[in-house]
Every structure is written in structure tokens, then in C-alpha cells.
């Protein structure tokens, strides 16, 4: 993996008619990286991916791939593969012919074509399905055909649109392993789009969190999970207690709250996961409004001077019923320090 940018987007602005979907986006991706575009629907992640594929012409900005400016290069000349969320297999062609489609257009035929297609099908474990039509395959199998169809073209970048979202839990695990294996074996640069943070965290080398057509944070899964840069990212990765800092104090529903520890002066806010909240001791008081048992842990919803708060404790600890008043603390050293509060 080299450190120079393999795929780079510079000041990319994308629009549908008058609606700007992505504004001035800058991003560079290294060769062989597995990158996730993560964000809620409408954040511009799919739009950005489509512009990399060449299916959407940017309004302004530049896309370069492997040292060449491809902003104006047609989609069929880019060496970019895309595995569609719906798989988009050709229904009238067999699995073999689906995988052979692009190779035939390249002028391959005869035994060379056959061996390339066979290798592609073998790599996704579908050799025995070559003669079937897509309609005779399960969703997971169809997706693997779509993956093989893109991979036999040896693309410089492989894009995947929500690759795991249509699969059931067991297949999802399988496909995740499959994608990691393909990426490892071929070294292809992969970008996948997802709205599921779990998917992004478990699969990607680097995550690009997007919101409202702009990048909210870029980082490794550990960065994103442990050090969210903004309130939005914190919320997205499961920090459920998020507070802004105002004049060195936490802003809360009933006025600012003083914490025992001095607050970091360079943070715009602090965020705690429910299990970072200390329950049973501390300077604050809260009333239990509700509790949820989830096997290994128990989650409490508390009414506190800070507003509603979520705390999670080991289920082995004795349960508290609704209405009980409990002491709690928000340990500053455990909190994620947010650079931006939005």
C-alpha cells in the first residue's frame, strides 16, 4: 500500500438539476485501500460513488485515478467496477455469460475467455452454477455473480453499493469475509457505501463519514468509534449522551452544569457511551425512568439535571426499579472530545 493518492477527488461538486447533493468534496484514497462511505440516506455517499463510476457528471471539481484525470472520461472507459445494491445481473444471460459480458466486449473469446470466466466463478465458489439463469439463484449467490462479473474485468477500483444490506445475518458474515478475501488476494482498491456503522467498522480500513453532502470525519474504524470528531459522528457510532461545552461548562437542559474535573478547553462538546456512565456513585442524582434488560447488560434511562441520560451496567449488578433515585458520574477522562458540535 503506497502513501500517494491512487484515487483522488478534488473540490467535487455534484448536483441533480438544481439540487446540490455534494459540495466541494476533497478525498484521497490509497491503492489497495478498503474504504467505507458511511452516512444516513441522502448524505451524498451514493452520489459520490456514482460520480467515481462515471454515471454522474460532476458539476465542478476533478476526479483522478492512477495518475490520470478521469473527470471527463466516459463510464465505459474508466476501469471502475460497480457491484449494484440490486446486483443488476442480466436476466436473459446465464451466470457464465453474465461474467463473460465485459470480457467479450474486450474482444476475448474461446479458451481464454472461458478460463477467465471459470477463474472468476471459481473465486466466488459458483462454478457449478455457470449454466443457470440469475432468477434461479438466491440473493447471496446473485451478489457473488455480480462480484465475479466486476472482478474479472480487473478494475482499478471496485465500488460496492450497500453490499451487505440485502443479505440475512449469516450471509452477511459470509459476504464480509468474501469481500475481505477478494480484496486481500487481488489488492484491488475497494470503496463501499453503507448506512450501517457496524458494516463500516468491521470491513473497512478507513471510514469516510458523510453528512449533508460533505465529509464529516475520515478515520480508521478505531478513530471513528473511539474518537468521533463531531456530535453527529458520536451519535452515529453509539455515543448516546452528548453535550455541548459552553464557557467551560456542559450545556444542559436546565442551565450549564459544572463537572468535578476541569473540561478540556479545546473541545466543543463531550460524549459518553451509556456504559461510560458511572452508576451508583458520583456527584449527580438521577431518577430511573425505565430499564431494559439485554442479557449481559442492563440499560437505564435516567431523568437528570442534564436531561435524559442513558447508562448501561453489567446485568449481574442488582436491578433498580423505576422511580429509584441513583447517584451517577460522567467521568471526563472517559468522554470522547468532540471538535465540532452540530
Amino acid at each position: 500500500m503506497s502513501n500517494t493518492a491512487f484515487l483522488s477527488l478534488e473540490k467535487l461538486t455534484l448536483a441533480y438539476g438544481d439540487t446540490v447533493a455534494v459540495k466541494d468534496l476533497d478525498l484521497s484514497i490509497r491503492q489497495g485501500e478498503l474504504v467505507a462511505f458511511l452516512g444516513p440516506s441522502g448524505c451524498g455517499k451514493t452520489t459520490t460513488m456514482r460520480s467515481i463510476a462515471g454515471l454522474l457528471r460532476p458539476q465542478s471539481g476533478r476526479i483522478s485515478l492512477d495518475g490520470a484525470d478521469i473527470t471527463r472520461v466516459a463510464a465505459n472507459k474508466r476501469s471502475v467496477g460497480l457491484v449494484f445494491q440490486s446486483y443488476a445481473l442480466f436476466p436473459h444471460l446465464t451466470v457464465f455469460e453474465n461474467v463473460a459480458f465485459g470480457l467479450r466486449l474486450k474482444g476475448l473469446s474461446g479458451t481464454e475467455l472461458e478460463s477467465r470466466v471459470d477463474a472468476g466463478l471459481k473465486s466466488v465458489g459458483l462454478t457449478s452454477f455457470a449454466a443457470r439463469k440469475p432468477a434461479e439463484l438466491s440473493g447471496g449467490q446473485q451478489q457473488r455473480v455480480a462480484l465475479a462479473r466486476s472482478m474479472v474485468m480487473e478494475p482499478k477500483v471496485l465500488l460496492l453499493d450497500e453490499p451487505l444490506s440485502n443479505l440475512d445475518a449469516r450471509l452477511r458474515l459470509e459476504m464480509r469475509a468474501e469481500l475481505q478475501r477478494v480484496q486481500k488476494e487481488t489488492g484491488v482498491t475497494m470503496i463501499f457505501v453503507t448506512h450501517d456503522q457496524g458494516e463500516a467498522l468491521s470491513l473497512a480500513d478507513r471510514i469516510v463519514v458523510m453528512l449533508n453532502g460533505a465529509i464529516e470525519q475520515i478515520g480508521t474504524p478505531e478513530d471513528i468509534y473511539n474518537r468521533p470528531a463531531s456530535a453527529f459522528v458520536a451519535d452515529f457510532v453509539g455515543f448516546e449522551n452528548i453535550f455541548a461545552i459552553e464557557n467551560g461548562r456542559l450545556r444542559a437542559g436546565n442551565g450549564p452544569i459544572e463537572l468535578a474535573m476541569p473540561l478540556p478547553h479545546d473541545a466543543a462538546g463531550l460524549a459518553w457511551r451509556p456504559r461510560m456512565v458511572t452508576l451508583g456513585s458520583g456527584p449527580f442524582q438521577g431518577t430511573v425512568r425505565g430499564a431494559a434488560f439485554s442479557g449481559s447488560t442492563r440499560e437505564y434511562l435516567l431523568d437528570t439535571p442534564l436531561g435524559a441520560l442513558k447508562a448501561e451496567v453489567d446485568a449481574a449488578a442488582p436491578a433498580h426499579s423505576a422511580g429509584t433515585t441513583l447517584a451517577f458520574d460522567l467521568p471526563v477522562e472517559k468522554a470522547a472530545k468532540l471538535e465540532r458540535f452540530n
Partner: protein
Amino acid sequence: MNSRLFPVVVLFLVTAFLIGPFFIIVAASVSGGETLAFPPQGLSLKWVAKVFQVESFRESFAMSMLLAIGGTGAALVLGIPASYALSRYRLPFGETIRTVVALPIIVPGIIVGLALLRYLVVPFRFNITLALFLAHTALVLPYAVRVVSASLNNLRSDIEEAAVLLGSSRAGAFFRVVMPNIRSGILAAFILGFVTSFNQVPVSLFLSGPGVRTLPIDMLSYMEITYDPSVAALSALLAFMSIGIVFIAERFLGFSRYV
């Protein structure tokens, strides 16, 4: 009446109503008598044989075939790209275009025929055969657009993008992945258009001239002069031809899915 029996009786009556005339025509066509009559007098195939000896029938049959095949072909050449554009792009006035394309079904044929005669053929001495061809193309176009649109709407548009990303051009993607998947819809549209055109009377009635006549019009005028069973024989033959076409279409395409 038994409640189970009632629907069966209704079904029988409706079927008899629909198919009855066909049996009467077939029976009348094998009559041995000299006039068109039911029940037939005697049994003979001489009127069936006569159909093939009447020269005007041969000529008007050729004309009708030419119009049905040519007109439907032209309607598809116009209709397939139109359907594609209407279903894939958000066109300005898309709904208006859809309505205009459907007009020939809505406007009575008599009016279309009269209008073409009065404002195209008469003032401009427009060639009647050409006018017939244009009229039949327009009459079939709504069916072509409707049936082809139905198959296009059942086809995901992302397969075209997939084809493009695999190296195909936009036009190539249309011919490689769209056309093969709407082929049965196109054939269904062709058959529907063919039958519509072949059976067309009101428009063709106005657009007839010396030596230019479609088969149904020719049969009408034949009957006005000669009231013999050969018209019944010809009708029966045409009905068998239509049944044959629909049967083949159903067998190979699952025709009924599209209409």
C-alpha cells in the same frame, strides 16, 4: 337454482355468446347452398375453394398483409424508442406525449378516416396507399407503446448502467441488455398490432380507391354484390389464421402476460 351450478351456467352462456358466431361462420362456410345461410344446406368445400379464385380477394389480402406488417413494423420502430424515452427519462411534457400517442385509440376510427380523407388525401392528392400506411401506423402505435412500455417498466434500469461499466456504450447497452429482455414484449406488441391493423375497418373504409382496398373493405363490398358463402369461408380462414398466430405466440412467448 343450485348455487354451484349458477356460475357454470353463466360461464357456458358467456362462452357460447363469444364463440357461437365463430361456429356459425365456420358452418356457413362449408355450406353446399348458393347463398349465405345458417344452418348450412348440404356440405361442400367449394366456397372455401372459391375464396382463392377471387382475384380481388388476393389483391386486398396482399394489401392488408402489407399494411399490417409494414404499419406495425413502422409503429414499433417509432414506438420502441418512444417507450424507452418515456419510461427512462423524465421528459418535459412526458404525460402529454403519452396522451397524444394514445389518441388514435380514443378518437373513433370514422373520424380519423374522414379527417385523413378530407384534409390530406383530397386537398393534396395524397397517395392513398401511403395515407393508409400512415393511418395504420398511427393506429397501431398506441398498442406498441403500451405493450413495450409494460415490459420496459418490468426491467430494472440499472442493468444498463452495469453494462456500461463493463465496457459497453449506451447504445450498445440498449441492444445488448435491454432489447433481449423486452423481446417477447416487442413480439407481443407486433401480434397485437398486426391483428388490430388487419381487422381495421372504419379508417380503411374512407381510404379506399381504385385498386387500393384492404381485405375487410373488399369483403364488405363483395357481400353487397354477391351474397354467397365465400365471404363466410374467407372469414373462417382469417379466424383460423388469427387463432394460429395467437396459439404460436402463447406457446412460445406467454403472450397473455403482456395483453
